[in-house]
């Protein structure tokens, strides 16, 4: 049994960027205190050059509150912005105004264009190709380690290339564009981390350029698919009609970017943090390695434990009350999935990593509601295949750490996680 016993900072400020560099135990000690003492805690917004500073936000940390907000999209909308605390400037909307920041009925109509592809039945067909990708990546990771005296980086050599290749294949993005996709995707979800956003005075310029880079790949592909349709997702985006009309350029670009970025960063961090968690819990790792029958609960526990996306935003559309908390139209709420996933009201021993946890009603893919993760079934497949393949092909993987954390409140990201293969001499 382990428990969080990290000190809680005297003054809690979730808008302090450096807070997000703290290790998970510090983060969770703060969430525990907010959940117990101030479950709708109010914070001023972090300042971002080029963005208007809004009125502040409430941090939602209890599972019941988070799920109630998610499941009432008419009262708590996404259309004012779901992935940014600040309202996004219009010129960035060209690239980032996707369905994740839309409300129904438009959101539902656009989502249906791709929903079939992400159903479990359709994903059965890509499982073999996912397995092939994972095996390729792990064989290459061993080669890399052998050339470096056994050392490797879990992020660059294992966790990043797997989802990158899977989503690029599904979208029809050719191999030569993968590096550009990864680079742009890292900037988009950098949270302003100085390593990824060189000019800290002009962070929006970097975001804009990353959007242009991905939209450029999309435009080339879209032209090809219009001429010669295939069965990939890009073809679906450019050929499907919604309400009798094709999607606009802006809708296609932002959708393309959403799928690429969301398909990349989330699964990557579930893999890298998951491998670190297995290193820290050797008894759990040993159990899972020999028992594929726990794949299903193990994958869910990894997602709960990691909570790859820390929060999404909702905005109140009217005045009201939720579980005794009064709110006004325009109030912003950040739904802290990472906090709800450790709520003792829902999870017994929430800070215990238990790969057989069942039931496990985590909100790592979002709470109940229309924005529930489109890629959840894909992510589960990728994670199950990846961890199984690591047990089989890299049984001597030892995470040595410490990790380099991404300075982001939004993505629970690792930039690097040092490891070695103990079998390499």
């Amino acid at each position: 049994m382990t428990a969080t016993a990290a000190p809680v900072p005297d003054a809690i400020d979730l808008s302090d960027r450096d807070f997000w560099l703290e290790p998970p135990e510090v983060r969770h000690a703060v969430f525990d205190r907010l959940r117990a003492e101030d479950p709708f805690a109010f914070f001023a917004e972090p300042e971002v050059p080029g963005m208007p500073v809004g009125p502040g936000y409430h941090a939602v940390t209890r599972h019941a509150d988070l799920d109630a907000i998610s499941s009432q999209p008419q009262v708590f909308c996404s259309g004012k912005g779901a992935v940014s605390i600040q309202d996004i400037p219009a010129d960035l909307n060209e690239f980032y105004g996707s369905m994740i920041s839309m409300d129904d009925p438009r959101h539902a109509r656009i989502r249906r264009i791709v929903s079939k592809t992400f159903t479990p039945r359709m994903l059965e067909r890509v499982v073999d190709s996912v397995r092939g990708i994972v095996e390729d990546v792990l064989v290459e990771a061993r080669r890399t380690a052998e050339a470096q005296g056994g050392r490797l980086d879990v992020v660059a050599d294992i966790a990043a290339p797997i989802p990158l290749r899977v989503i690029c294949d599904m979208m029809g993005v050719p191999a030569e564009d993968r590096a550009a996709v990864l680079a742009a995707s890292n900037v988009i979800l950098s949270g302003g981390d100085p390593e990824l956003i060189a000019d800290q005075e002009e962070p929006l310029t970097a975001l804009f350029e990353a959007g242009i880079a991905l939209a450029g790949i999309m435009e080339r592909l879209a032209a090809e698919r219009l001429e010669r349709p295939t069965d990939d997702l890009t073809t679906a985006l450019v050929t499907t009609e919604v309400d009798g009309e094709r999607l606009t350029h802006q809708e296609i670009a932002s959708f393309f970017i959403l799928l690429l970025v969301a398909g990349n960063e989330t699964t990557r961090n579930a893999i890298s943090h998951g491998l670190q968690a297995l290193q820290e819990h050797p008894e759990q790792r040993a159990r899972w390695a020999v028992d594929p029958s726990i794949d299903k609960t193990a994958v869910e526990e990894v997602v709960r434990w990691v909570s790859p996306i820390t929060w999404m935003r909702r905005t109140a559309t009217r005045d009201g009350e939720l579980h005794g908390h009064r709110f006004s139209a325009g109030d912003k709420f950040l739904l802290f999935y990472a906090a709800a996933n450790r709520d003792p009201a829902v999870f017994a021993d929430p800070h215990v990593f238990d790969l057989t946890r069942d039931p496990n009603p985590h909100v790592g893919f979002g709470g109940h509601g229309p924005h529930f993760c489109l890629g959840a079934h894909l992510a589960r497949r990728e994670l199950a295949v990846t961890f199984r393949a690591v047990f089989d092909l890299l049984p001597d993987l030892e995470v040595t750490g410490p990790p380099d954390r991404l300075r982001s409140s939004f993505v629970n990201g690792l930039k690097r996680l040092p490891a070695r293969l103990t079998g390499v001499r």
Partner: protein
Amino acid sequence: MSRIEVDRDRCVGSGTCEALAPDVFEVDDDGVLVVHREEPGEEELDDVRDAVQACPTRALALAD
């Protein structure tokens, strides 16, 4: 006889129900949920109940 009800405003075609009761539910090419048997047989009821319970958008109900 139990009857499956779908709230079309809530359904986003995630296919979670389809995974749990593939003979009863299917998301079609347009992303729309099709219910093959609105009154499932006794032997399918457990799977259908699991599907109703698991729906991420709470779009399914089983009415008596």
